[in-house]
């Protein structure tokens, strides 16, 4: 399966959890820490992100940047 990852801007995340619900891989969860605004923020909790972008699409705060393995890399691995 293609691999991806996300960078979540923890300072602007408000911990609404919409990304967590939207993630088909259950890769995301809420942190135990709080950010500068007092919110628990979303973070990767499993290393199984596929870079499907769902989390970023529903994120109301545009806090998520998504990266994915290039398709060429995937072919090589196979």
């Amino acid at each position, binding site marked *: 399966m293609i691999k991806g990852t996300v960078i979540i801007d923890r300072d602007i995340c408000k911990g*609404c959890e919409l990304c967590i619900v*939207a993630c088909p891989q259950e890769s995301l969860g809420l942190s135990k820490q709080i950010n500068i605004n007092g*919110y628990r923020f979303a973070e990767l909790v499993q290393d199984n992100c596929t870079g499907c972008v769902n989390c970023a699409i529903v994120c*109301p*705060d545009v806090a998520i940047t*998504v990266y994915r393995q290039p398709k060429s890399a995937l072919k090589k691995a196979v």
Partner: protein
Amino acid sequence: MDVPTTLNGYELIYKKPSTLTEKPFHYCPGCGHSVVHRLLMEVVEEMGIQEQTVGVAPVGCSVFAYDYMDIDMQEAAHGRATAVATGIKRILPDKFVFSYQGDGDLAAIGTAETIHAVNRGENILMIFINNAIYGMTGGQMAPTTLLNQVTSTSPYGRNKEAMGYPIKITELLAQLPGAYYVSRHAVYTVNAVRKLKKAIEKSFAYQKLNRGTCFIEVVSNCPSGWKMTPVESNKWLEANMFPQYPLGDIKIPKD
């Protein structure tokens, strides 16, 4: 903000559009407003029309919409966004003009301006955020508040005898010959967001045809006003709002 285009050999596939400013959104956690802001600006970026777009912000929670969208904008008085947008479009007929309003703004205090802008077939895009409540002033009853819905000014639930019915203004507007494209959307799931973005893209493209008004309602949430978590609010929206405000196209161009 510049983000690296690669990360440990991975390619960048989604980032914040450059047409949004650096300012973090002030909206409550989980609010749909900023998703719609972002989609508008994604479309503006992708169509390369930042220089040709002028927006009109309302009075309501999205009163500061112009703080986030990196385009020329005007802030209208409560309810008057479509009159302001009319003024702009008449002076700048070749520009893309959109108005952005909530339910109180568009369907209560601004009903006359709303109906007549559509009836004239103003070549603008009207975005209508319907979350059945006055969010900014603290959760009062809106024209679109559902029957029996509890708000701070319908504390025993909206009763039709005293407070009338939730207004389906979008269906009403679709009756007008000036309406070219009328569609109802939501931002509660990934697919819904994708569909809304398509509708916004179409509306901007239609604006160039000068065939009439494009009107998009977004049935949205208000976790703070509804007193729910964002995740709960999206479930409540699906169960309660959609039966009254069903999603989908209401009027599509005939040709």
